[in-house]
């Protein structure tokens, strides 16, 4: 007996050792391309990408063997659940955040290696935005977002204007009495009392603002400050600031985005989100309507901005027109953190802490008609669903306990500078729990379509009955989250998982076990969250109408897409109409996917078949860059940076011609 035990002990140790050593071998020899391409923005085959992989793959291994609750581990191994960013689990880092740029800029901040004074012009302010994004992304592992960049930066346009105006007074010998007039862009009296200085200052400010925006966009696409040559996952939301300064910011960002990067290429970062609000930018009489139209034009050329819906009732309920921090905004990937049961019903200064995703498809296969039974076993399905919801939640709470007991100094910049609200009040050794409780713990799901197919023989876009079943299923998951929020006094929310690395992992394993099942496991990926499958052909309006009700249920965020095939740049009317229709249907976060091809020779952008319409270059001679979107993020060339599952998904997308 003793011998047996020690033998099995030895073999377990050997197994672990073998795993660790093959991890290193696979990475250094680039043997596991799928693993290296898990993240489309990371060059896993580069030196720094590999070093990063060494760290993260070992951290995952360690978490699996020494940290994860046993049940969670088993659920992960059996392909029932997925723990996102497992490599970050053991150290207790957190996911994403909305950064209070207004606060950091107005007070100044310290990066740890040096301190920065409050900026006195829009060019310095925009330069500091990039620095702040960069500092913050090293304090956590997920996305960094500005929820109201136009509002945050408007004061610095005013500062620049005042500076230029004073210069103008000097150049043009115009005298000035400070008592009676404000030096602001919007003060039209100045334009008649000091015409030369005013128009000089206006012109200089516009130029400066545009250049500042240009350098911000370039910085956010070029500072590879994460392992693997990754740039921070940045998002910026804007669109509602109606001051002339705020409008200038929005205008500049859109102009520079349309101009593109150094050789005119589409910027991949930041993800841009235009915040749509009736009375502000949705009708011709609204003050920012012209900027909304410009956002539409920009999106037809550059895929960004996406569109956030402030008027959807579930977003509108937190809206205070006097406080831009209550305006719904989003992480580019879709994460939403608006409500807080501990009172912080605004965006800046908090974020999502972590999320676990449930494989709905496997539950469908187990209990559905796909097994040959005539009646699906709904009782069994829901019993199992709740079992895995419990395990997913236990995992989130377990991870939360690790996160909450970390000292403030561990997340460094985030707490010290008060990026996470209240962090600045903590002593370096103090635990962050009181701050983190304002964040969200989210349960996500993938493959509703394949789950329905397995359960009922049709997916939710193929039958009204099945659609209602699908809606009830997601509603019950939401109910579970709401109940558990009460029970644990934490923000437990439901997310329509952005499933990049995951889209193929679940499928591959399920196919090994259950074989290739038509409409269920026969593709290389599972359909994202509640989406209608990309291969299912239906009118755009119908897709929008079917997906809209799920947006309200997924209170931790969701996105819907419509695919358009063709050169949408020359048909902005269609684009505008589709966007406003989606908003009217209470889609919370929306975007339109369309192809942007770029000639490798002459840099022509548009639709390119085999040959470039401008210079005639053939794809066989010079590769074309074909920009596509994955998990909300653009990626330069989907044929080399996408993993296999995502490549398959892009190929299958049905487009509205």
């Amino acid at each position, binding site marked *: 007996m003793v011998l047996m035990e020690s033998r099995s002990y030895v073999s377990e140790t050997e197994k672990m050792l073998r795993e660790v050593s093959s991890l290193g071998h696979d990475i250094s020899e680039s043997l596991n391309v799928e693993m290296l391409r898990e993240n489309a923005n990371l060059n896993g085959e580069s030196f720094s990408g590999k070093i990063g992989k060494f760290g993260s793959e070992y951290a995952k291994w360690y978490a699996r063997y020494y940290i994860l609750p046993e049940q969670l581990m088993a659920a992960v191994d059996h392909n029932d659940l997925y723990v996102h960013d497992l490599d970050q689990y053991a150290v207790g880092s957190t996911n994403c955040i909305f950064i209070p740029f207004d606060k950091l800029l107005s007070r100044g901040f310290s990066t740890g290696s040096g301190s920065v004074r409050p900026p006195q012009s829009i060019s310095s302010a925009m330069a500091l935005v990039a620095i702040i994004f960069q500092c913050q992304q090293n304090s956590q592992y997920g996305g960094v977002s500005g929820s109201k960049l136009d509002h945050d930066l408007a004061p610095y346009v005013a500062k620049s204007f005042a500076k230029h105006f004073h210069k103008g007074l000097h150049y043009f010998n115009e005298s000035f009495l400070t008592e009676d007039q404000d030096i602001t862009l919007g003060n039209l009296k100045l334009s008649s009392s000091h015409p030369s200085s005013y128009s000089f200052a206006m012109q200089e400010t516009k130029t400066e603002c545009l250049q500042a925006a240009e350098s911000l966009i370039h910085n956010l696409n070029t500072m590879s400050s994460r392992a693997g040559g990754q740039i921070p996952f940045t998002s910026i939301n804007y669109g509602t600031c109606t001051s002339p300064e705020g409008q200038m910011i929005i205008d500049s960002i859109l102009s520079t985005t349309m101009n593109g990067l150094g050789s005119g290429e589409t910027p991949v970062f930041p993800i841009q989100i235009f915040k749509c609000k009736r009375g502000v930018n949705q009708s011709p009489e609204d003050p920012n309507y012209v900027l909304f139209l410009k956002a539409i034009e920009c999106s037809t050329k550059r895929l960004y901005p996406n569109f956030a819906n402030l008027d959807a009732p579930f977003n509108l309920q937190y809206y205070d027109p006097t406080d831009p921090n209550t305006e719904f905004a989003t992480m580019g990937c879709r994460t939403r953190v608006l409500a807080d049961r501990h009172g912080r019903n605004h965006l800046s200064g908090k974020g999502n802490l972590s999320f676990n995703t449930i494989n709905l498809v496997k539950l469908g296969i187990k209990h559905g008609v796909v097994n040959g039974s005539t009646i699906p076993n709904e009782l069994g399905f829901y019993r199992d669903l709740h079992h895995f919801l419990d395990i997913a939640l236990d995992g989130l709470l377990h991870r939360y306990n690790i996160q909450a007991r970390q000292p403030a100094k561990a997340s460094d910049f985030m707490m010290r500078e008060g990026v996470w609200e209240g962090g600045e009040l903590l002593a370096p050794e103090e635990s962050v729990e009181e701050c983190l409780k304002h964040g969200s713990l989210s349960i996500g799901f993938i493959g509703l379509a394949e789950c329905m197919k397995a359960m009922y023989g049709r997916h939710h876009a193929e039958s009204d009955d099945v659609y209602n079943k699908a809606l009830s299923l997601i509603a019950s998951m939401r109910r579970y989250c709401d109940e558990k929020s009460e029970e644990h006094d934490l923000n437990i929310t439901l997310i329509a998982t952005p499933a990049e690395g995951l889209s193929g992992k679940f499928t591959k394993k399920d196919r090994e076990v259950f074989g290739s099942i038509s409409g269920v496991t026969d593709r290389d990926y599972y359909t994202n969250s509640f989406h209608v499958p990309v291969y299912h052909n239906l*009118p*755009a*309006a119908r897709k929008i109408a079917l997906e809209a009700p799920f947006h309200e249920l997924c209170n931790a965020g969701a996105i819907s897409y419509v695919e*358009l*095939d*063709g*050169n*949408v740049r*020359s*048909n902005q*009317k*269609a*684009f505008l*109409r*589709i966007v406003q*229709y989606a908003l009217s249907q209470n889609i919370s976060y929306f975007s339109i996917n369309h192809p942007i091809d770029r000639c490798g020779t002459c840099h*022509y952008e*548009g*639709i390119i*078949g085999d040959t470039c*319409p*401008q210079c005639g270059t053939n794809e066989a001679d010079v590769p074309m860059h074909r920009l596509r979107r994955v998990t909300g993020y653009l990626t330069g060339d989907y044929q080399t940076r996408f993993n296999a599952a995502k490549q398959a998904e892009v190929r299958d997308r049905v487009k*509205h*011609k």
Partner: protein
Amino acid sequence: MNICGYYPESINEGDGLRAVIFLSGCRHRCSGCFNPETWNFNYGEPFTEHRQQEIINEMANNPLLDGMTLAGGDPFFSADEAADFIDKVRISLPNFSVWIYTGYMYEDIMAHMDSAEYRLLQKCQVVIDGPFIESLKNTSLPYRGSSNQRIIDIQANLRHDVATLL
């Protein structure tokens, strides 16, 4: 009349989101035509009463459509039937904008005011005219195949007697 294609929604054959119906049959025989099989008047499926109503219902139920585009073939070779179909569409969709493609020149149709082709043209808002000329091929032009083709606002022209390009 046969139809050889139907897109419930498209952005590539006119402004806004449009339903596109391809009517079979064309005698222009442009060299380099992208779908010469549609020259045949018997190509595709008969455009039956039932099929017409089906498409009209679908268009009427799509809140995103700005209008319909008739392509081909060349719908002007089936001018009477195409005009009848437009009338039928307008019963359910009185303000639906209709764009139409033709290999004829706009001026040639306008010169025959008692023709079926003229009556068809009058029922439409915009015509994209002219044959496809391979040497002038340019796929980056919105809605057109070659640079000789024009996008003409028919109603503006009827009013002003001048060729107005959109």
